[in-house]
């Protein structure tokens, strides 16, 4: 099979410590266009720190994060100028936080939350912004009459869907998600999972999803990395890792789930 495409993201030997305590240790992986990569592990395994390092929210101690931009020019985000990095985050990347209050502007209306990222890249036509916001509200199954309401008047599930709309409106090529269904009721989770799955397919975005929930990983991810103590202890296709776990820690994780 001839595969000549390049990875969208190539992470090489990434390390990050908090003082003397290593949080991410020598992690390397590639993410391919259209791929959804799940990162699983327990709290404290380093998976969220890794995600924050990728997003530039934390400074890394060592390693490279090479991103293949839409313009076709790979750029190392660790050494890139802050302005170039910020521009990419606004235009080509999205970040869905576990807590929607961290990812939304709570004092902006739903419509303004969606429109803000468009305005940040130079969109100024109010009517156009509003109609785009409307179409994204319906894409994430929110009633249009709520467009002028503040996020705090929404349920947790609705806030999370609004955060997803806010991220996808600029049609990013890569979306990072940190426990996107954490803290939601099971029935709300199912709806959100189905929505994420559909939008990722429809818009062909690549995604990195951090989750401690193996059921979520099974539904969303093509491929999994298992982290423990800051290191990747196992990786493979989702069914390989969950149905034939090799590492002792992965076997423990899989056997601890009631049904995945």
């Amino acid at each position, binding site marked *: 099979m001839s*595969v000549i495409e390049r990875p969208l993201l190539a992470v090489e030997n990434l390390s990050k410590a908090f003082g003397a305590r290593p949080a991410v240790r020598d992690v390397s992986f590639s993410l*391919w266009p259209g791929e959804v990569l799940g990162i699983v592990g327990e709290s404290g395994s380093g998976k969220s720190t890794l995600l924050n390092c990728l997003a530039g929210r934390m400074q890394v101690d060592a390693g490279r994060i090479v991103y293949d931009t839409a313009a076709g020019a790979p750029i190392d985000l660790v050494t890139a100028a802050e302005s170039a990095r910020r521009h990419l985050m606004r235009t080509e990347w999205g970040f869905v936080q576990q807590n929607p209050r961290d990812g939304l502007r709570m004092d902006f209306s739903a419509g303004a939350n969606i429109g803000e990222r468009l305005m940040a890249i130079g969109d100024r036509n109010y009517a156009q912004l509003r109609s785009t916001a409307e179409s994204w509200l319906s894409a994430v199954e929110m009633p249009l009459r709520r467009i002028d309401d503040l996020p705090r008047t929404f349920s947790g599930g609705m806030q999370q869907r609004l955060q997803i709309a806010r991220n996808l409106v600029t049609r990013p090529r890569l979306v990072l998600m940190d426990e996107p269904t954490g803290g939601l009721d099971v029935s709300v989770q199912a709806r959100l999972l*189905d929505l994420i799955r559909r939008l990722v397919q429809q818009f062909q975005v690549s995604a990195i999803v951090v989750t401690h929930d193996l059921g979520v990983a099974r539904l969303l991810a093509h491929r999994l990395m298992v982290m423990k103590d800051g290191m990747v202890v196992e990786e*493979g296709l989702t069914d*390989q890792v969950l149905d034939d776990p090799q590492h002792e820690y992965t076997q423990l994780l899989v056997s601890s789930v009631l049904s995945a």
Partner: protein
Amino acid sequence: MTNSLPMIDVRDISKTFRLHLRGGAELPVLRAASLQVAAGECVTLHGASGSGKSTLLRSLYGTYRPQQGHVRLRHRGEMVDLVTALPRQILDVRRYTLGYVTQFLRVVPRVSTLDIVAEPLMTQGNDEAEARRRAGELLERLGIAGKLWDLPPATFSGGEQQRVNIARVFAAEYPILLLDEPTASLDEANAQTVIELIKDARSRGTAIVAIVHEPVTRAAITTRLVPVAELGEAA
């Protein structure tokens, strides 16, 4: 009709499970097992529970990674070894070449029956209308009433879910099919439909490996019965 084009070439695979939670106990299941399957053949695996039938089937799908040997499948005109292929190459093989009817449908919340069946066709690049049309044909042939097509199959009976599962895999017309007890929870009429689907697939040149206990289906579809214990050295 015999078509001798080799589609599956398993060479000397060994698979041992190491159970870390049981003090590192080792469970050898396959040892140097080999199996070749040509286009148009339906090989039925034979053997007692624990003899390695499911392990072999899952190794053929790339879910189980053998410690040794090769699992080569004909994909886009060349033999691709699942043991050494990159994850995204295995996904490509599964998208276009390899279908797997498991015993249970893994239900995705909220997705309708028709969309579940149409999904593999759409990922192969068919347009939505065509994918849904073919999905509907298969569901109809398998006796899933049209009024159920818009519902997610979570609440369906076991037999209905199994037929949705079969429709999903057969609609995509993969050149290689793996079948794990495809008629186990079906009544006689539906089992007969599945037997016809399998025969149709064989006449298109599909290579099939199946696990079937039920004697009527087994007799109707099998072109070669293979005792798993005799595929390699005794494990």
